[in-house]
């Protein structure tokens, strides 16, 4: 569940790739041939060798995974590794606990924390002013006040603390790895790190949540560690990429001065990659926040707790308010880090009056200190006064949800049945009800059609893995849902992406909505969706679409906007209609963005497979939740998690090979940069 607030735009004006060489038969025709043959074979053989296993039956491999976990669990009192990690976990807990007593929970015997809400808000606002200017300071101040006004001050501070600790360790661990990734001349190091990062990012957290508890303990320590694991990859990937892409001419020029490789790193590569590194940091923070609700499953402190506890009371409004505050926090941190990077660049160029700046900061610092003092002295400045804002908003949301579901249920039910009957069920029957070797052959042939020889090896490995871990049938159902979800995502992406690219006002209006779609915890909107669509695969698909569409829409919008204005004017001068302009010029010329959007969209939809398992979609998502819920099924859950990873890597490698074969990205810096920046 990667969170992306604002993927960096591709360099505008980049010319489209040269058209690929003409072939005797285009690739889509070959693909149709493969699918046609597949359908014939399916009609003759369906229902045989599908490798379907009942819900509570597990294979030997899965049992071995469970046994391994059990043996580690049984050894916990004597295992030196567990004792080491446990003390590490204890240390995390102590750090978080100390910070909590400073700003979030009463520091006994004080009835309140050491610094009250006014002091914390003042300090945060001052930091905003110092790093990014007064606009950001206002945003930060308003965000902090909103945490209190809606009644979640303490949970908000807890989430900030956990996020902060996890991000600090992500940077400490991630930056050296990023430098390694960015400076290594060995291709196997690069591909090894990249594959590991892919695994870390697609493995469902529920699979490793129980082992984390085993190794690090319950509560803040588990929350920090699971957040850390998920937040680490973006900074390694993006920063590593930035370092690698510092222009070789600059490096050669400075190398001529006889610098050591360490000097080169410190004086040239790191400073020149700073902007990309900040993007990486930004992505890491967003990823950390998206773990808030998952961490709450193991008593991790933060805003995820009220979201989860409202979920099991079917309290939509009660989940919405803290969920919205997570979005507020994400937007605040996103805008602050971005603005801070821009501000520091201005300062580095000497465009800031340093003397004036120092005076302003000193004066405002005094103000902040006064606020801290006041918040240590007066109860009402320490403890946020209770307001009715939170419950009122929750009430509105409840009323709105009820009205909405009652009004539109008929229409949504019709749409659900339409998609299920005419798209989902036939496709699932083809993919999952064919004998497993037929489906495997068909996937392999399609991979070859699209990605040529380059795609074959990863596809074979992943298919063999899916077969080995014994959840073939469930994997194929999950694959089907992911494909249908991606199709819906791409329809939305093209419609809204083109619209946003053509109208600045639409862009301005939609961006915050897209940001919210990406950062709001899915648990907030699951119940309304269940009310609209029932516990079905379609509900799971819609949840995936909500999460994946924003990324795809932004990518398409950026791609379409990148089409050079001269080309557009040329087409206008020939009298093309708007429709022709879009279909004949803008979309074909932003084809690489469309491919990328489809790739990212698919991975994001897949990332929601586990959430899908909680709303009636069954398949791999359900297996993962089952493994998390029942200790004897842990191995099955782990096998399902691995299968999700394999599907993700397989599809990604086929897409990449296809893009490579099509020479969509001749410019070597472009493709990985997008990918990396998306953390996908």
């Amino acid at each position, binding site marked *: 569940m990667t969170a992306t607030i604002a993927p960096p735009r591709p360099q505008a004006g980049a010319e489209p790739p040269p058209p690929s060489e003409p072939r005797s038969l285009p690739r889509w025709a070959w693909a149709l041939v493969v699918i046609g043959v597949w359908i014939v074979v399916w009609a003759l053989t369906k229902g045989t060798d599908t490798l379907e296993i009942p819900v509570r039956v597990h294979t030997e491999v899965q049992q071995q995974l469970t046994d391994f976990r*059990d043996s580690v669990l049984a050894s916990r009192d004597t295992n030196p590794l567990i004792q080491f990690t446990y003390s590490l976990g204890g240390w995390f807990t102590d750090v978080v606990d100390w910070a909590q007593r400073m700003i979030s929970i009463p520091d006994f015997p004080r009835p309140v924390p050491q610094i009250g809400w006014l002091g914390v808000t003042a300090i945060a606002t001052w930091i905003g002013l110092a790093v990014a200017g007064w606009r950001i300071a206002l945003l930060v101040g308003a965000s902090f006040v909103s945490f209190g006004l809606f009644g979640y001050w303490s949970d908000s501070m807890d989430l900030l603390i956990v996020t902060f600790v996890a991000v600090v360790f992500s940077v400490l661990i991630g930056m050296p790895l990023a430098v390694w990734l960015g400076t290594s001349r060995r291709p196997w190091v690069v591909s090894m790190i990249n594959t590991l990062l892919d695994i870390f990012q697609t493995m469902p957290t529920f699979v490793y949540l129980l082992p984390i508890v085993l190794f690090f303990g319950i509560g803040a320590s588990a929350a920090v560690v699971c957040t850390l694991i998920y937040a680490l990859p973006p900074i390694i990937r993006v920063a590593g990429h930035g370092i690698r892409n510092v222009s070789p001419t600059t490096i050669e020029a400075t190398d001529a001065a006889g610098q050591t490789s360490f000097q080169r790193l410190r004086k040239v590569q790191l400073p020149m990659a700073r902007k990309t590194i900040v993007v990486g940091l930004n992505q890491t923070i967003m990823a950390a926040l998206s773990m808030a609700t998952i961490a709450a499953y*193991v008593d991790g402190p933060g805003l995820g707790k009220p979201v989860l506890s409202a979920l099991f009371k079917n309290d939509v409004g009660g989940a919405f308010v803290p969920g919205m505050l997570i979005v507020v926090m994400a937007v605040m941190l996103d805008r602050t880090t971005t603005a801070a990077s821009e501000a520091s660049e201005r300062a580095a160029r000497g465009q800031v009056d340093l003397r004036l700046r120092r005076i302003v900061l000193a004066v405002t610092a005094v103000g902040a200190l006064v606020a801290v003092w006041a918040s240590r002295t007066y109860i009402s400045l320490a403890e946020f006064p209770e307001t009715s804002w939170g419950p009122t908003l929750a009430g509105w949301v409840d009323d709105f949800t009820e009205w909405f579901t009652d009004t539109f249920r008929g229409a949504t039910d019709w749409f659900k049945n339409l998609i299920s009957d005419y798209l989902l069920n036939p496709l699932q029957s083809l993919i999952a009800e064919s004998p497993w070797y037929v489906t495997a052959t068909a996937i392999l042939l399609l991979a070859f059609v699209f990605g040529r020889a380059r795609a074959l090896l990863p596809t074979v490995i992943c298919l063999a893995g899916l077969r080995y871990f014994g959840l073939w049938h469930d994997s194929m159902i999950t694959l089907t849902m992911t494909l249908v979800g991606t199709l819906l995502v791409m329809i939305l992406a093209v419609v809204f992406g083109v619209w946003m690219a053509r109208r600045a006002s639409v862009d301005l209006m939609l961006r915050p909505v897209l940001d919210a779609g990406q950062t709001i915890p899915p648990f907030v909107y699951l119940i309304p969706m269940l009310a609209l669509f029932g516990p079905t695969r379609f509900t799971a698909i819609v949840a995936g679409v909500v999460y994946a569409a924003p990324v795809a829409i932004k990518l398409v919008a950026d791609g379409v906007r990148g089409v050079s204005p001269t080309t557009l004017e040329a087409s206008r001068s020939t009298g093309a209609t708007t429709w022709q302009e879009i279909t004949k010029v803008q979309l074909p010329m932003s084809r690489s963005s469309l491919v990328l959007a489809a790739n990212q969209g698919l991975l994001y939809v897949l990332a929601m497979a586990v959430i899908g398992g909680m709303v009636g979609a069954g398949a791999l998502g359900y297996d993962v939740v089952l493994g998390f*819920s029942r200790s004897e099924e842990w191995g099955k859950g782990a096998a399902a998690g691995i299968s999700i990873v394999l599907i993700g890597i397989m599809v990604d490698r086929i897409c990449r090979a296809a893009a490579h074969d099509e020479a969509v990205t001749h410019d070597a810096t472009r493709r990985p940069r997008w990918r990396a920046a998306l953390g996908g």
Partner: protein
Amino acid sequence: MRKMRIGTKLTAVAAVAAFVLAGCGDGGSIDEQTEANESGAAGAGDCGDLNMAVNPWVGYEASAYVVGTVAQEKLGCKVNYKDLKEDVSWQGFGTGEVDVVIEDWGHPDLEKKFFDGSGDGSATDFGENGNVGIIGWYVPGWLAEEHPDILDWNNLNKYAKEFATSESGGKGQFLGSDPSYVQFDEAIISNLGLDFKVVFSGGEAATITAFEQAQKNKEWLIGYFWEPQYVHAEVPMEKVALPPYEDGCQDDPATVDCDYPETPLKKIVSTSWADEGGPGVDLVKNFNWTNDDQNLVAAWITSDGMSPADAAAKWVEENPDKVDAWIG
């Protein structure tokens, strides 16, 4: 100059806000409360910490907070509530992170791992808590009213088509539940020759939403449900009679063809915590209440929107007899 003015303004605003708010603050002095807390701590009892696991359902929350409130208010324990699923809670017994699971529906695999004898002995069975879990097949109230014969399993096949959905592949849909729960529905359906397919909702929230919508929109639905559950107070549901449970009829998961047994819910505690003894241990040992008690508190939490702590405090205040019996 522009920046300067803004900086000054901010300071002024902060300072004014501070003093204005300080002026209207009537919460009393922090120092006074600190002193009060200090002297309070000196006179507290010897109960110590009580780490109470809070599993994610409302009934559990009601029991946990009632016991926690009594421990805190009457015995002076420091109660730490930990929001955890069942598996994680049991793992916590051995590490001292969890002391009490107040409502356990039966977990044979966890018992094997953590009870004395077969496992590491970190968990101890502390007996029944008085609640009885009833599991079964339920239909929404409107359906039972319009087709009363549906409450007998023999008639289910007659209606199977009505239960079909986009998920059930032409058969009737039986809505299975959260993977945490004991479920034999696939076996029951096949062994009774019913024309149904189990579709797993995957979570309690999904199941509850499905029953709410089915009752509201008069839709056909049959599924796994249970009592005590707060939603029975809001959505009428009727239990379908399966062949009655007999001893041993659920021993082999593959051949189950009978109803679920009534499950007495149990208290499970950390062995080392229980061995230490103290008033908190005695309280948990004695704790016992009825399904009606729990449903009442659960309804306060859900329908009336009270916080679990407030709801528990209200019940404790209104039921001194029962509470006194627990603390002896």
